[in-house]
């Protein structure tokens, strides 16, 4: 054990600094591995959590008494299933659609900084890139719905397109509020803003220091409003209840993926759980301080162990937000399609616009909380 930590430290330093191409490959492979393991974990969590809400036991046979390997077994089953393509479908589009849908969520992973050091792609337009790239998914869904040659699938795809385009606006506007505050679209810099030392000394000696800004969700009332709006809109973007109209089981049978089977179906599944992670991670990074465990009190850590700790914190936050998604899904009934549109256009967009405007005014005045009170 004594030699393990220095060894890992060494390997870590080499992988992150010396061999750039190797690091890139490692990152991509890491993303692929992570997204699969993550989806497995998320599905397991969803099944266990929903079982808990519903006075059931949930998976408890495969992989120990907690059914940890149930998802793996299900995934294997899906992999060995026959790949059915309906006779009258548009076969090329039908075959390509799951990959296109998956692309969006997959590409978004690349730009997510997991810790200060673990980032596959550190780009200055991180927020913009993620917002743009996750919208690709809707094309895949539209392709799937259209090419299936099934009226129910088409309905699901139409609903998905309408819903996603409507909710992109409030979610992007809500993300603009922290961008306005921090003045950066780089996710790492946004997190850096949230743990900026109060005294302005960047090279800290000690482990713990104070930071004035704190998590952006608590930075100002308007950033908090933006956080809530973003979270609600992101639910709609990953087609989660109460906005799960595109695959509304009791109305549209299974929506756009009614005709899919086997691995192609599981790609839609991966996309959904990948998206769930992406929006949770973005919310955690932008609004909840990313890898910093506490608001207003920041930790100064580095190296392998420090990054491991930060990674744990970041994942814990993401899992918490994901758990809230699961919680909402198994609590709320589904909204009707017009109610979803009303919610988006009449409430979320005006609220997020107003929050953006007010944040701009506050920034102009140089205040964070209610003027006169704080």
């Amino acid at each position, binding site marked *: 054990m004594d030699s393990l930590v220095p060894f890992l430290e060494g390997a870590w330093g080499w992988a992150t600094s010396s061999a750039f191409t190797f690091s890139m490959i490692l990152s991509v492979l890491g993303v692929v591995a992570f997204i699969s393991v993550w989806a497995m974990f998320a599905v397991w969590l969803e099944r266990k959590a929903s079982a808990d809400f519903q006075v059931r036991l949930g998976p408890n046979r495969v992989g120990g008494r907690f059914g940890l390997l149930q998802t793996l077994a299900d995934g294997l089953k899906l992999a060995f299933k026959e790949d059915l393509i309906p006779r009258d479908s548009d076969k090329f589009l039908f075959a390509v659609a799951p990959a296109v849908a998956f692309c969006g969520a997959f590409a978004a992973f690349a730009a997510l900084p997991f810790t200060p050091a673990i980032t596959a792609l550190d780009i200055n337009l991180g927020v913009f890139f993620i917002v743009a790239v996750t919208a690709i998914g809707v094309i895949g869904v539209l392709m799937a719905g259209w090419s299936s040659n099934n009226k129910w699938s088409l*309905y699901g795809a139409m609903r998905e397109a309408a819903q996603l385009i409507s909710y992109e606006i409030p979610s992007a506007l809500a993300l603009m509020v922290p961008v306005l505050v921090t003045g950066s679209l780089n996710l790492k810099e946004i997190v850096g803003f949230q743990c900026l030392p109060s005294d302005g000394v960047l090279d800290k000696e000690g482990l713990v220091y104070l930071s004035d800004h704190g998590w952006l969700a608590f930075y100002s009332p308007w950033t908090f409003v933006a956080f809530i709006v973003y979270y609600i809109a992101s639910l709609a973007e990953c087609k989660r209840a109460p906005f799960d109209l595109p695959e509304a089981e009791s109305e549209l049978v299974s929506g756009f993926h009614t005709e899919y089977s086997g691995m192609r179906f599981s790609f839609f599944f991966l996309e959904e759980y990948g998206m769930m992670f992406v929006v949770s991670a973005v919310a955690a990074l932008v609004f909840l301080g990313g890898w910093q465990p506490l608001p207003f009190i920041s930790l100064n850590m580095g190296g392998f162990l420090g990054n491991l700790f930060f990674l744990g914190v970041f994942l814990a936050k993401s899992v918490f937000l994901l758990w809230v998604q699961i919680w909402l899904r198994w609590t709320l009934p589904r909204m009707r399609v*017009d109610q979803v549109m009303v919610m988006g256009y009449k409430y979320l967009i005006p609220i997020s616009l107003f929050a953006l405007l007010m944040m701009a005014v506050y920034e102009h005045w140089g205040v964070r909380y209610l003027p006169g009170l704080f």
Partner: protein
Amino acid sequence: MADAMTTSGAAAPTQPAKTFALPGDPLRPPDTFVDVRTQELQINMGPQHPSTHGVLRLAIWVDGEIVTRADPDIGYLHRCAEKIGESVSCIQYVPYTDRYDYLAAMNNNLGYCLAVEKVAEVEVPERAQYIRTIAVELNRIASHLVAIGTYGLDLGAFTPFFYAFREREEILRLLEWICGARLTYNFIRIGGVMRDTPAGWVEDIRKFLDLFETRLDEFNDLLTHNHIFVARTANVGVLSIEEAVRYGLTGPNLRGSGLRYDLRREQPYLLYDRFQFDIPVGTGIKGQVGDCWDRYWVRLLEMRESVRIVRQALDQLPTGGEIMAKNVRHLAFKSKAGEGYLGIENPRGELGYYLISDGGANSYRSRIRAPSFCNLSILESMLPGTMLADAVAIIGSIDIVLGEVDR
């Protein structure tokens, strides 16, 4: 559109093409119109669809998300139940009645047995009547639990379903204890009941009722007052008393529209005139009288009334005594010649049996008035003009059982 008994294969009503002028379109001269033709889409809902509660097929014509016409198509579960009633003896026919409304099999047994007893003039012992009441009301609670649970499922709320089934499981255990079956009981027999109450059964029912009354309130937290649930059901599928009566609706669907009509009160059978219970009706708490929410609410309240009835029946249950009428305890039962109709309050409405006997072992004619069949007929007039998601909500609130619709 009630008079238009259209077949599902009929052509969709033609729609005039809509024309829109696009103002300020620089590529077109200002006086040209763009022909934007919208087309009605016929979609086929069922017989394999999660929300049609069985093998109901609905041919639906939709304009976008709006249903313009709906045509229920039944018959996928037809099993010649009425004809079988003429070819087997009355006693042999009782198990068949289990299979109509399989969620309320006790009630089906009871309706048939009461009708036969009416024609054959059989006197049923008092203890058997009490046991029948207890079994039937427990079965009503179980049936309403399924209705409410699956209604949540229709609206995308999965969790209440499991809570409803948890309670239902207890009732099924109690009913299994007394007759050995969980769904198709065949417990109520002509002239009485199959067997006497087992030791401990009555005490267990009391225990269950105490627990159940507290758990009924959970549904208010889970579903009843949920904002989204109310938004999905209030003012949706509003049904006036006049229309409900005109279509022959009975049961919670009729009472949801505000008419206080319950056969247990109007034409008391068994010993219902000895019990005190209220008949809940829809009052439009969340929206208009007769909307989906009211029908749901009536079912929820009725479970509480059933609990009251069971409690009273348990209190009044005579100790000891016969459970079977003397003259029918053999397979060679022969009815007297004659005819008669008897309707009982099934969980879904008036379940009526019309029997003609020529004095033999079989009935000459057995006709069943199934409540779900009559309730289903309203869909054709209710669905047009609603949204697709509302159509699902309305079908769920009517609470049909396809085994009974087709028979």
